[in-house]
């Protein structure tokens, strides 16, 4: 038995009750995250990546609710904590970075105000110590003349600089886990890789684990240790990045890999997965991917596959049973 995982999500179900019935946004997903590990979560829009992140940090917008399963942080259940206890945990033990740095910072407060308030909410330090800490953090994330910039307002920073500030804010109370929800999507292409590398470096230095939510396979390949591919509120495949990228097992992952343009690639057309992801109110029975899959069998339409071993990874596909039977 390995060491206790930092974050352990088991059979998590998230539901949104609506007037026309209950929609299941997350349908029984399980994964672990070790200390200091970077887990990439990929998938199309609406696959449930962000909802998984918000569920972990306890910020699901009502009427969304956790309907089943459990979330544990170092063995301690956090999905059923009272709001006040959960509030103390946010920022202190789990940090979060949002997609759009232009709107993540309060426009009417200086960034110094915002960082110092966050530090003082979670750590027993004086205002002076909090200020010193804020300057050190801003320097660490690469803000030049950090001491002077404390009194600057968010609009006085560029998008990339603001995302650096956001990262500093998410890390200012030394959380054990940071959930980064598409941290580079809203940024200029030229600064995207800078920010990703910064996030990676800072988290490695602090020993912070990262749950990196993105739809950019390139970002995952560059940064993550492991990757979870999500489809229709379920995990289609999860495993070490190299393994998943080099030899994807799930037809959906194979499709995703085919859709990545490569500089050295010899095929002149990118493959495309036909159709689109089903809406939450019309998820087909059996494997949710079956209408788009080229390898669909009878069983895929009836029975939902669970995650099963596929090399070093795990994937949820009935095909795996066959190949195994064929002597893998």
């Amino acid at each position, binding site marked *: 038995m390995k060491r206790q995982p930092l974050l352990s999500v088991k059979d998590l179900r998230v539901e949104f009750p609506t007037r026309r019935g209950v929609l299941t946004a997350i349908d029984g997903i399980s994964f672990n995250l070790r200390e200091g590990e970077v887990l990439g979560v990929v998938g199309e829009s609406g696959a449930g990546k962000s909802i998984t992140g918000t569920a972990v*940090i306890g*910020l699901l917008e009502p009427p969304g609710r956790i309907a089943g399963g459990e979330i544990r942080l170092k063995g301690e259940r956090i999905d059923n904590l009272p709001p006040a206890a959960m*509030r*103390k*945990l*946010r*920022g*202190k033990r789990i*940090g*979060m970075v*949002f997609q*759009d740095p232009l*709107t*993540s*910072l*309060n*426009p*009417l*407060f*200086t960034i110094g105000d915002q960082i110092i*308030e*966050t530090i003082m*909410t*979670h750590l027993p330090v004086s205002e002076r110590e909090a200020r010193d800490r804020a300057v050190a953090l801003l320097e660490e994330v690469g803000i030049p003349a950090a001491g002077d910039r404390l009194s600057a*307002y968010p*609009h*006085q920073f560029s998008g990339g600089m603001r995302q650096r500030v*956001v990262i500093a*804010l*998410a890390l200012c*109370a030394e959380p054990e886990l940071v959930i980064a929800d598409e941290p580079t999507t809203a940024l200029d292409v030229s600064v995207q890789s800078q920010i990703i590398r910064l996030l990676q470096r800072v988290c490695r230095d602090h020993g912070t684990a990262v749950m990196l939510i993105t739809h950019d396979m390139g970002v995952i390949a560059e940064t993550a240790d492991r990757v979870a591919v999500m489809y229709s509120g379920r995990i289609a495949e999860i495993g070490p990045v190299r393994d998943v990228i080099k030899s994807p097992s799930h037809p959906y992952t194979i499709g995703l890999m085919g859709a990545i343009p490569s500089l050295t690639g010899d095929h002149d057309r990118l493959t495309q997965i036909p159709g689109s992801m089903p809406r939450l109110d019309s998820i087909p029975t059996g494997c949710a991917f079956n209408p788009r899959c080229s390898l669909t069998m009878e069983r895929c339409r009836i029975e939902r596959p669970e995650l099963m071993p596929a090399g070093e990874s795990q994937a949820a596909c009935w095909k795996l049973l066959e190949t195994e039977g064929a002597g893998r």
Partner: protein
Amino acid sequence: MLAFTIRRLLQAILVMLVVALISFTLFRFVGDPVNQMVGVETTPEQREALRELLGLNDPILVQFGRFITKAAQFDFGTSYQFRQPVAELIGRRLPATLELSFVSAVFALLVGIPMGVYTGLHRDSVLSKLFLSISLIGISLPTFFIGILLIFVFAVTLQWLPSFGRGEVVQLGWWSTGLLTWSGIKALILPAITLGLFQMTLIMRLVRSEMLEVIRTDYIKFARARGLRQRSINFRHALKNTLVPVITITGLQLGSIIAFAIITETVFQWPGMGLLFLQSVQNVDIPIMAAYLMLIAFLFVTINLIVDLLYFRVDPRLRVERAAH
């Protein structure tokens, strides 16, 4: 910032000049002022002498210049009906109106903002629905009716509060205040609520809708994700972002509170400027009407100027944009 202030000041002066022109023409429109000052048996020679004495034979521009010069020194001539300097008459009435207006504005803000924040945060609670129903009453009932209703309940039936007048006042220099005596404060309560109720409901609804908007923003979500205290998120991070429209509306409303205190003052027999103005309208007392017009315009212009400057205090983004120009 300084350049902006100067530009706004110049605009303010321009507005005041236009209002002064309108006040000035009031005298012309209503007829020959000499007719209103003298009896029927005055000879044409005497009229002409008076006309010369009053400077009415001078070119219009000279007369207008004189009017402005005098107005700038708070000299608005003599009231036809009271035979007293207008400035003195208004000076005596002004404190009553200003006290009433400011107390109702403070009431509207102190009650309206917390109610707005509460109803914005707890949309579906019973208390929120109650507040919203009350605010419908405040918005839809006319002021005089609310005043009469309050008089009926609290002055006539319960006999807790007086139904008219200012109570005892204390003289502080030329300023007479009712805020320092118990009876003065008691007399202020009903008219202040009557005058402020509409503004209160307006502010409450405004703060509510702004709050609903703001709590959905990313920076509030991010503040939650950082585990900030709920009170800090609601009253620091969210409320401050609702303030710009609230300041705008409150500023404008403060102007109208002062200008339209007339109705409340009539209902409660409040000895303020509104009552004086109504009397002057009935008696065609042009100097008072002109002075009142100038005074209200001055208050509006001043409040607007303050509101514009407050924007800069609240929103740092404006400071930079202006500096870049």
